[in-house]
């Protein structure tokens, strides 16, 4: 993926809907859309664009995925190497390059989590770091930053870790306590429910962000604080989700061992 984006002078990604770059078709000379020439159908040389720009989408997180899929199919029909198998070497190369961009972009945008993570990265947020709030929390509690446990999960995680330890020890001794396993299964279900609920939290955060984009497009000045707060709320959800995902993996490992 190539991270060339339009940033305004404060370093924030320009949030106006990005139009596909219109260039001249290298083959027939007519002015056409960026991916292929609508006149002669020929694939155009790849240009570094982000995934939203690739699909001509604004930097909003509520996406019509059915439309995205239709666009993906329509572009595949023009760009795919199979379609361009008889073109000259240059065109075949572009076709390969552009189709790989298309596939990357589609895969990233169709999934709500990877789409959110991608936007955060575009906005310069390092996902490996915890959100600002979480970092402050970590400083207060003195825990290692990477291991920050989302506050509302603290108690549960504590209990869960004890049970995991217990079962691990049991298994080492050759035992297999069904009630322990049962407890773990229950924990697992609770965590899964939490994970599912997270999608609706995420949707709220999306609406917040999308409203900022709309207001920017309407010419309203948005303060950095507003912007950062919206991004931070998404980041904390993503982090929680990653945390829970890792817990689930750990439970599965112990249960299946």
């Amino acid at each position: 993926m190539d991270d060339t984006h339009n940033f305004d002078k404060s370093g924030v990604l320009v949030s106006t809907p990005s139009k596909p770059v219109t260039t001249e078709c290298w083959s027939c000379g007519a002015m056409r859309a960026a991916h292929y020439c609508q006149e002669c159908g020929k694939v155009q040389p790849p240009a570094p664009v982000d995934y939203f720009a690739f699909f001509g989408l604004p930097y909003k997180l509520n996406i019509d995925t059915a439309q995205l899929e239709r666009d993906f199919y329509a572009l595949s029909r023009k760009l795919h190497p199979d379609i361009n198998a008889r073109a000259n070497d240059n065109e075949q190369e572009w076709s390969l390059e552009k189709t790989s961009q298309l596939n990357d972009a589609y895969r990233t945008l169709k999934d709500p989590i990877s789409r959110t993570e991608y936007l955060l990265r575009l906005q310069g947020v390092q996902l490996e770091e915890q959100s600002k709030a979480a970092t402050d929390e970590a400083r207060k509690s003195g825990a290692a930053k990477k291991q920050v446990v989302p506050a509302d999960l603290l108690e549960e995680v504590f209990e869960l870790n004890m049970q995991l330890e217990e079962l691990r020890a049991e298994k080492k001794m050759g035992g297999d306590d069904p009630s322990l396993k049962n407890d773990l299964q229950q924990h697992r279900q609770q965590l899964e429910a939490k994970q599912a609920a997270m999608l609706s939290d995420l949707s709220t955060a999306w609406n917040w962000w999308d409203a900022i984009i709309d207001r920017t497009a309407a010419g309203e000045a948005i303060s950095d604080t507003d912007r950062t707060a919206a991004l931070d709320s998404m980041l904390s959800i993503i982090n929680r989700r990653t945390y829970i995902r890792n817990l689930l993996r750990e439970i599965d490992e112990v249960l299946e061992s």
Partner: protein
Amino acid sequence: MATDRIIGIDLGTTNSLVAYMENDRPVVIPGEDGLNLVPSVVALDERDQIIVGNAARKYLIETPERAVYSVKRLMGRGVEDVQDELKLFPFRLADDLAAGEVLRIKLGNKSYTPPELSAFILRQLKRNAERYFGAPVTKAVITVPAYFNDAQRQATKDAGRIAGLEVLRLVNEPTAASLAYGLDKKDTATVAVYDLGGGTFDISILKLHEGIFEVIATNGDTHLGGDDIDNLLIAIALDDIQGDLDLDVRRSGEAVATIRKAVIEAKIALSAQDETILDVELSGGKRYQRKITREQYEQLVRPVVERTVGPVRQAMKDAGLTAKQIDEAVLVGGSTRIPLVRKLVEEQFQRTPHAGLNPDEVVALGAAVQANILSGGSEATKEMLLLDVTPLSLGIESLGGGVVKIIHRNSTIPESATEHFTTGVEGQTNVAIHVVQGERELAKDCRSLARFDLKGIPPMPAGLPRIEVKFLLDANGILHVSAREARSGKEAEIEVQPSYGLTDEQVEGMILESFDYAEEDFQKRQVVEARIEADTILAALEKARKGPAWEQLTSRERDDIGKLETGLKAVAPHEDYQAIRTAIDTLNQATMRLAELMMDTAVTTALKGKTMETADVGEGPTSSHPIAKAEINN
């Protein structure tokens, strides 16, 4: 366009086929023997000539050390990962294999790499197609198991090149099958293709939508198939033979091959009957017989068949679908004829699987459809487009032996990822990257693809160089790597050391060694064949002149034949195939009556008490028309 004819090839573990799209329908091109299936068997005959297919099968039993089957199992693999195969299959590795070298298999006192052996099969298929079209064929689509890794794909592509074929696309077998299956289907459907062949298993889940065939998830096992069932039955027979007949024939290649043949027959019988007799006639007049009921058989093979369940579940999970959301389960591969397999598929997908396709041919037919799409499409395929995925994740070995995944499995291909690397020591000018394929956490548990050595990095303080490496999986699922130093923008020099597989130079060398590999060779071969045919006719004519039938011709007829004979003699030494062909055909026409007269004379002479040999009718009459077209074997 005739010169642009692209054939579709199913290079199978057990059987291979070649197909072509004719008038909007894919058809299998039969071999010279009229059969569609070319057994994937390669043998070396008494004169050290390579024999392929049905003709090679007898060597499996007669001279097992000069024949090989199931070579596909060895494609793209190293010595250390074929140890299990060596216990179960009569592969004989060359004695002088160096560590890290591509495997070589002994045939008689020669040895060949798996891509070369596969190339012999491909060349046979190519010839079958050329015979069918009467024109050279140089381009092909070849199918591979969906779960083949990069090395196995590369080895298949190399085999194509060695056989003189430009491999325009490698298509995954289940996906190819879906193309043939979905040729007439224009509605939206989610389809699972369950492909259990001779040596490989694949499961692919696809979404069919207005001609787009989008693979959502794929999984499989490249070492699971009918062969494994055969091996179980062979093991039982060997034990029995030792127990009952007090014979240990494990070391006898011939006996094992005979048992294998009998076991396959029994296996096939048990797909239709409730019981069968496993019947083996051993050399020395000993005979081993054993009744096997379907029940016993199913109990025996269930563990093999059940190994397909894991991949099926994983593919469903990866696709995010439940059995109810699958509209159809399609059966592909010869092993899906086994009732137990069908039962299992039915259980997994909660529906009766679709078995309306010929499981042996559908993959080749699909390859022909893809070949048609690549050649610009036709009325039948103009809306069709295949979007396939990579079956395995691609990663880079990190410090400490872990794996950082850069491309995840089930990503639609082509697919790329860009990673940045830097130096760890001041002035460092090289960076080594180890690329692996697989799902495991540790690099040593994954498949090593290649080691890349980035060279010529300008000496800078540690951590300052920014080397951008681009990994691109193409539409064949094959990896390409390029790198540049981001600060200088200079293309970095990459030295690739494929962990398994042939280098470009080796493949080039093999191409040179193989005789017929290009259009030019096809023409050369045609001329050579025509010349042999001309010689046969001229020789037969020479003899016929001395016989009584010659005298029965009118002088006009004799004159005509004489002129045509001179004409043929004149063109035969030249390279013009058409001229030789025409001269042969006209001479054939002109000698038709002579041939008839010779037959009559022969019969009359025979009636007078003389034998055919002494009737002096020449060599001609051994065929129905003494000067008929010669059978040319190539």
